[in-house]
Structures are given as structure tokens and as C-alpha cells.
């Protein structure tokens, strides 16, 4: 009985792993869209904070990418 439970447990975490990977992948896509969104916004209204916004969006994208790679390694 305990063996069956163990197998079910392993199966569940396998599914959770795929769910996590999918979620983080969607987040990477979202981070890429944010870069485009900031480009659009800055072209509509450009002021003194254009460069910081663009930089933050690019850093955010790379953080998301690193998390995705980390999740592949860790999970």
C-alpha cells in the first residue's frame, strides 16, 4: 500500500514539475512582451525615465530566463 502511495506521490510531482515549467515559460514570454510594451509606451510619451524603464525591462527578461533555466535544472 505504501509503495502505491509512493508511486502516486512521484507521479503527482512529475505533473507539478511540468506545470511549473509551463508557468515559468509563459512568464518569460510575458517578460518579452513587457519589453515591447515599454518600447511602445516610451515612443508615445518620452521623458527623462526612458532609459531606466528600458533597462529594467531587459533585466526583468533575463531574470525570467535565468529562472526558467534554473527550474529545468532544479526540478
Amino acid at each position, binding site marked *: 500500500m505504501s509503495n502505491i502511495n509512493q508511486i502516486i506521490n512521484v507521479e503527482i510531482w512529475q505533473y507539478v514539475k511540468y506545470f*511549473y515549467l509551463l508557468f515559468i515559460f509563459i512568464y518569460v514570454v510575458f517578460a518579452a512582451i513587457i519589453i515591447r510594451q515599454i518600447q511602445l*509606451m516610451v515612443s508615445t510619451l518620452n521623458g*527623462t525615465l526612458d532609459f531606466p*524603464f528600458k533597462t529594467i525591462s531587459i533585466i*526583468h527578461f533575463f531574470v525570467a530566463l535565468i*529562472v526558467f533555466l*534554473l*527550474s529545468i535544472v*532544479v526540478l
Partner: protein
Amino acid sequence: MPEIYSATHHSSKLQNISPKKIALSQQIMKEIKADLSKFKKQPSIAFTAFPDKLKFETQESTEEIVILLRQHMITNFKWIVLVLAMSVIPIFLPFKNIFPMMPVRFVLMTNIIWYLLILAITLENFLSWYFNVNIITDERIIDVDFYSLIYKRISEAKIDNVEDVSYSQGGFLQAIFNFGTVNIQTAAEIPELEFENVPNPARIAKVLNQLKIQEEQEKIEGRVR
């Protein structure tokens, strides 16, 4: 026949614009600048008068931004509280305690995903607040709205087309922090422009009326751009 003579006489009058009349429209602009000087000296992010280093997409070379408006800072309160509350949840209520069966590697990734989610909420709300602006120039009123990640809508009306300006302030927060909604009825394609939750709505309504008078004066002086 007398009408023809009087009409010719009238147009010749317009061509010989007296320096005194030219000064009148400029005088109104000076009054507006003097009224808003306090806001230029102490600019807030939500209400900036005559911003120096700011341009928008469709701005003409001779066009000057009079006021740049965003929703009052206090409107961000809700999502800031949400983000702060979400940030401390894993500290007081660790995921390991909620799901004791969860392997350590999954606990680590759940924490990372949780904070990514917080980052996404912060970014989206901040960007939406910062770039959803209302611009009043000496020629036009522009309402810039970003509805979703990549969809934007820009509505504008010429100051000449402004028919009626009204504002409303209701509720505890709006009364305390002096912000409200300015409604602008226009004769343009978009019949109404709405500046939601903007600071100093009474001042904005006053400036819009002054700009309308200034624009009418410019027309009389024959200096229409």
C-alpha cells in the same frame, strides 16, 4: 450692397492687427503660467505644469505642453498594499508548512514563482499608472490609454472644440487628497473626454477655460495655427 462695403472694411481691420490685441492672447497664456508656477516649482508625478524634458508622439514643433496629468498617487494604494501583503506571506506562512509533502526543490521553485508573480503585478500596475496620461497643450487635449499589454488608444480634441468642462469629487479619499474626475464635452469626433482621478480638478477646469478663451482670442487676432 452696404454689407459688402462693411465686410471689406471688417477684413481690412483684421489684417491690421493692433499690437495691443496680439498681446491679449499672450497675456492670457502668461496668466496661466503664473497660475501654474507653483506646480512648476514643486512638480508632482501626477500633476506637472509646463514639463521641460517631455515630448509625446504627435506633438507639433510649436505646440507646448501646459499640464501633464496622471491619476493621483493614492489610486496606487490598493495594489501596493496587495503587493506588500503578498511579499510577507511566505515569511509568516512558509509553503513547507502549507504543503508538508512538498519536496524541498519544489518549495524553492514555489517561492521563486510567488515572487515573480509579485514582480509581474508591480510592473503591470506601475507601468499602467505611469503611462496612462492626460495631456493638455496650448492647442489640444489628449487622453492616452493603454488598455492591455500592447493595445493603446489615443483620443484627442482641439481646444476650439471644447464646449463644456465640468468636474466631480466624491468620497472620503477624493475630498482628503483633492482629486476627482474632469469631464470635457467636445464638438469633436469623440464627444466626451474623461480625466479620471486627477489631482486638482478645479484647477484643471480653470486652465481649460482659460485656454479656450485664449484660443478664441487668437482666432480674433487671426493667429490660428
